[in-house]
């Protein structure tokens, strides 16, 4: 149903769309001329060899690229019809609506509870209640709901107040996803979310992404073609040509794997099959 939905929505206005995007670090161009529409509710996988600018591309989508010194972005990115690269964009608001999960799990050195309560309180997402007790109760409910969402509740419900750094890598990554979800963003950007995880833990994260599919638009970078094939609605292939990254092909998962139009894509996915 979701694939049909995304196929239908691509015909209409995309939720997020990069237009002739170029990013450079100082003089060095990381990628250039990338135009990529992303439809509401779909999972878009980005694949390609190391150093072709995937992470750089992702970091533009919520302006995390602002944090990198000497990083310069040109072009346009439309989100709900407005260009988010314009200097007038409120990046705090933008990053609330477009959440990000990093390659390496990065929970804060706080308790599991506090990792989730901190963004909740910061953004006043829990309505202030008549009493302190009711307020805590409301926060607790939100935390429990999101931990159940990522399938972590049963594992951590007895250690909510111990350090998040003591969780396993897979648990930490799911906690980070929960932390992003608790702000109820519209889009999730995931930069190789499974690369630090063992196969079992990454299967859990994959399954989680599939469960989140109708509710959230997801853009995921992966080096694992089999994984892309399992979870993605559409796939974008990046490649380095003349020392610059670029988008060489984008299409539905089926088309990329069965009928790639670009010869590099063909070689890449057949390598992945082998």
């Amino acid at each position: 149903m979701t694939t049909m939905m995304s196929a239908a929505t691509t015909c209409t206005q995309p939720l997020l769309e990069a237009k002739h995007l170029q990013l450079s670090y100082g003089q060095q161009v990381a990628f250039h001329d990338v135009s990529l529409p992303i439809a509401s509710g779909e999972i878009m996988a980005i694949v390609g060899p190391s150093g072709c600018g995937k992470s750089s591309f992702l970091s533009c989508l919520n302006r995390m690229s602002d944090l990198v010194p000497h990083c310069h972005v040109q072009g346009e990115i439309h989100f709900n019809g407005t260009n988010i690269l314009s200097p007038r964009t409120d990046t705090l608001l933008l990053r609330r609506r477009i959440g990000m999960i990093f390659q390496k799990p990065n929970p804060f050195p706080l308790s599991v509870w506090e990792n989730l309560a901190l963004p909740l309180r910061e953004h006043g997402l829990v309505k202030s209640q008549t009493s302190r007790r009711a307020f805590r109760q409301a926060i607790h409910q939100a935390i429990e709901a999101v931990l159940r969402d990522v399938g972590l509740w049963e594992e951590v419900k007895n250690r909510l107040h111990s350090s998040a750094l003591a969780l396993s890598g897979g648990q930490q990554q799911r906690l980070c996803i929960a932390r992003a979800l608790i702000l109820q963003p519209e889009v999730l950007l995931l930069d190789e979310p499974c690369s630090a995880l063992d196969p079992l833990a990454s299967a859990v994260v994959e399954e989680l992404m599939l469960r989140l599919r109708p509710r959230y638009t997801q853009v995921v970078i992966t080096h694992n073609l089999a994984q892309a094939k399992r979870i993605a609605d559409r796939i974008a292939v990046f490649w380095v040509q003349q020392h610059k990254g670029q988008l060489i092909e984008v299409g539905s998962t089926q088309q990329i794997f069965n009928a790639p139009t670009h010869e590099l894509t063909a070689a890449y996915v057949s390598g992945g099959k082998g």
Partner: protein
Amino acid sequence: MQTFEMSQLSSLRRAHRRDRILRHSLRLLGSITGLLVLLITLFVLQEAWPALQNLGFIRFWTDGSWHPLEGSFGLMPMVLGSGLIALGATAIATPLGLLSALFCQCYGPPLLVVPYRRLLELLAGIPSVVYGFWGLVVLVPQINRLHPPGQSLLAGTLILSLMILPTVALLAIASLAQIPSSYWQGAAALSLSRWTTLTRIILPSARSGLFTAVVLATGRALGETMAVLMVCGNVVQVPSSVFDPVRSLTANIALEMAYATGDHRAVLFVSGLVLLAIVAGLVVMAEGISNQGMSSESVIVHER
């Protein structure tokens, strides 16, 4: 095949030998340093011993005044003087130093931050006699206008706070720089405000390093001699206000060592011993705090 293995084996042996040489020379250097500290302490103890034996340790605290030639050896006013100057300087330099560090690491534009850091490094490198000189010709007259005589506890505190400011700031910068950038990124991705990021994540994680910075700066303030000697007035008394002149333990040693003999000389070594003990205590404290930070994996557990 055989020769290949032989050559591998011999290069492995060579690597082992180099390792051994390095290890032994490092051990040697380390023990020389340790031995020096030990020897200095022993020497001071030995020189102080006659006084400790003849007068007893208690008298240094109970004698009402410091008249070494008349046999009255009260160290208390000077211990107090040293302590007050150091504490005052720490109290001023800590907030300024921490704010400077935050400015450098978190807020300042790179264009400003780099020269600012150079400035701090320069401040750290200025000889203390220059600070003292500046204090004497600029600061002391100003204070004198406010409330004579000018050479005072206040002057010493201000000069010292300027001197230890770069210590606090540079050590704090170093400890803030150790915070993994992934915390900053994670916080930015959750659009936490800078204030929340700092107060809830960054500062608590850097806590032990920041404490260490302050404690080491206090140690430096306690040991400082020249500048303090030049601006504090050096009257042995318990000050009744910040405008009163005071004498620090270090200034006392520097002033009287040249002509002291007998018990007097030995008592000066006792005050050196007291200083050594206080500074050693501070270093142990700093060590303890930073180890504590390590063992709890720099985890902050907040209210439940």
